């Protein structure tokens, strides 16, 4: 009897089961009505994945035109494994999602109708939702800026070393992938105008910048006198504990190259009031 059960196992294709039992319910690829619709980036896919792991039985769909997300400033460096602690910042959108259970579409959502609980895509398709999760970020475009324009269209290499952060622009994403590599000498100026960008306002970005430049200083490819200057009208930007004290402590505790990290720890933070 026992032997026959073993044979049966060998010849039976195993099914996926939830922890609570029951086969995985595959989603209808033509479904238009969803319990939850996500519009946005990696955080959306992370929430969707969490719902899947928590055995949420409702229907879910995610819209994102990007197949992958990466830290364009250090894409090659991160992907090559030189900064393993930052590798989570570069990943495909669908790597987090079980595509059998939920729909992931590359269409761009162009309209939202909250009164009807509907979203419309660029192809004119209408999808209904019960709950809408928006994780779209902000629209950042330098197009038409008379100061920046002459220096931004010099090709992928960015030889002027003037860069602008535009997450929606493929050209700038590609060009910005060389931003750290192109930094050979002089100070690194970060100028934040209006609402701070989600990258440059995060401690993570400065930690990565520090990690990269500190290594360069340790091997002598960058000057010891090099400074990172952050110019912003927002006095509060670096007053958050997580964006200042914690990061500074982290950098200090690493002791990777000891005193060579001083340039960031003593980094002059310039703001509208001229504080430094």
């Amino acid at each position, binding site marked *: 009897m026992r032997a026959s059960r073993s044979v049966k196992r060998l010849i039976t294709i195993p099914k996926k089961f939830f922890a609570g039992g029951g086969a995985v319910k595959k989603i209808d690829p033509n479904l238009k009505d969803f319990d939850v619709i996500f*519009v946005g980036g990696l955080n959306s896919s992370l929430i969707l994945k969490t719902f899947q792991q928590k055995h949420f039985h409702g229907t879910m769909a995610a819209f994102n035109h990007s197949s992958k997300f990466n830290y364009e400033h250090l894409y090659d460096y991160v992907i090559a494994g030189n900064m393993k602690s930052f590798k989570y910042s570069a990943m495909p959108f669908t790597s987090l999602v079980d595509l059998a259970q939920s729909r992931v579409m590359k269409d761009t*959502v*162009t*309209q*939202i*109708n*909250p009164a009807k609980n509907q979203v419309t895509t660029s192809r004119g398709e209408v999808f209904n939702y019960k709950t809408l999760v*928006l994780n*779209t*970020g*902000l*629209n*950042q*475009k*330098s197009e038409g*800026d008379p*100061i*920046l324009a002459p*220096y931004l269209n010099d090709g992928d290499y960015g030889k*002027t*070393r*003037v*860069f*602008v*952060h*535009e997450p929606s622009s493929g050209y700038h994403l590609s060009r910005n992938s060389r*931003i750290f590599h*192109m*930094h*050979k*000498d*002089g*100070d*690194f*100026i*970060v*100028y*934040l*105008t*209006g*609402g*701070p*960008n989600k990258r*440059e306002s995060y401690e993570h970005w400065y930690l990565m910048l520090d990690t990269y430049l500190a290594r360069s200083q340790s091997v002598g490819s960058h000057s010891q006198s*090099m400074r990172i*200057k952050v*110019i912003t*009208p*927002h006095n509060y930007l670096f007053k958050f504990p997580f964006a200042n004290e914690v990061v500074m402590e982290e950098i200090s505790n690493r002791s990777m190259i000891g005193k060579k990290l001083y340039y960031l720890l003593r980094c002059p933070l*310039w*703001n*509208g*009031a*001229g504080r430094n």
Partner: protein
Amino acid sequence: MELVGIDVKQTVNGLSRLATFKDLKSGQNVTMNFGTFLTTPKSRKRELYNNNDIADEDVVFI
């Protein structure tokens, strides 16, 4: 400080990179040499929020 100009030009010593900022309080211009200049354009709400009242026109960080 507000960015009022960038000047990248060839000199006998190589490329010269200068950024000029205006101090909004004193009204004076401050010029800085830079090796790399990175900026983030002013943030606005995305187009999909234009036909609804989900997002404010001006993005305010708290």
